[in-house]
């Protein structure tokens, strides 16, 4: 087990940890825009680290060049794809979640409503558009 194997293992484990953080963010965050915030960055960085670790493990060859091509391609295109999806949702009229509103879709979370009337908190939202 030489130095390259240790570096490759560290890079792959770090990439897998970033992918795990992105997966947890997709499930836990409150609305669509915050979920894209979690996935768009951590997935790109996790894939770059993990594939670079595999390239270090493989050693210099043609396969290594192909792996670096995968890294460059995904680092360029994954943010573009996420941005296109967010733009499509925004143009279609999907509303973001603002601070102070009740959680949109998590029934286990208790709603920290300051106002006693539940309907009154939603009213100013309608005037805004």
């Amino acid at each position, binding site marked *: *087990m030489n130095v390259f*194997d240790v570096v490759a*293992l560290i890079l*792959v*484990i770090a*990439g*897998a940890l970033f*992918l*795990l953080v*992105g*997966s*947890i963010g*997709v*499930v836990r965050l409150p609305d*669509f825009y915050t*979920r*894209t915030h979690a*996935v768009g960055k951590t*997935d*790109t960085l*996790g*894939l770059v680290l*993990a*594939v670079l670790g*595999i390239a270090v*493990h*493989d050693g210099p060859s*043609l*396969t290594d060049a*192909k*792996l670096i*091509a*995968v890294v460059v*391609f*995904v680092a360029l*295109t*994954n943010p*573009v*794809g*996420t941005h*296109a*999806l967010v*733009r*499509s*949702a*925004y*143009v*279609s*009229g*999907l*509303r*973001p979640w*603002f601070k102070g509103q009740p959680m*949109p*879709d998590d029934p286990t979370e208790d709603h920290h409503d300051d106002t006693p009337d539940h309907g009154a908190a939603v009213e100013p939202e309608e005037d*805004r*558009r």
Partner: protein
Amino acid sequence: MEQAFVVIAVALAVIIVIPAYRVIVGPTLFDRLLGAGAIGTKTVVLVCLVGVIFERLDMFVDIAVGYAILNFIGNLAIAKYFIVPKPDERLPVESP
């Protein structure tokens, strides 16, 4: 060394399953598309790891390249297709 990669690949397979929750119960259409895109991105890493485990990385890396390209093209096409312009329901440019 190979056993370490096997352990990481199994852990990654578990990580890939997690966004499927968002695909199944996502409240809006875009949440489901986001979960599907996240699964596709992580699968590229899993394909490369399987190539290392099977000692056939030169074959699996081509599959990974094709999967990454198809994932990107599919994401762009779906995002373009599902734009539903509603001018009166459009949000203001500066958010309050």
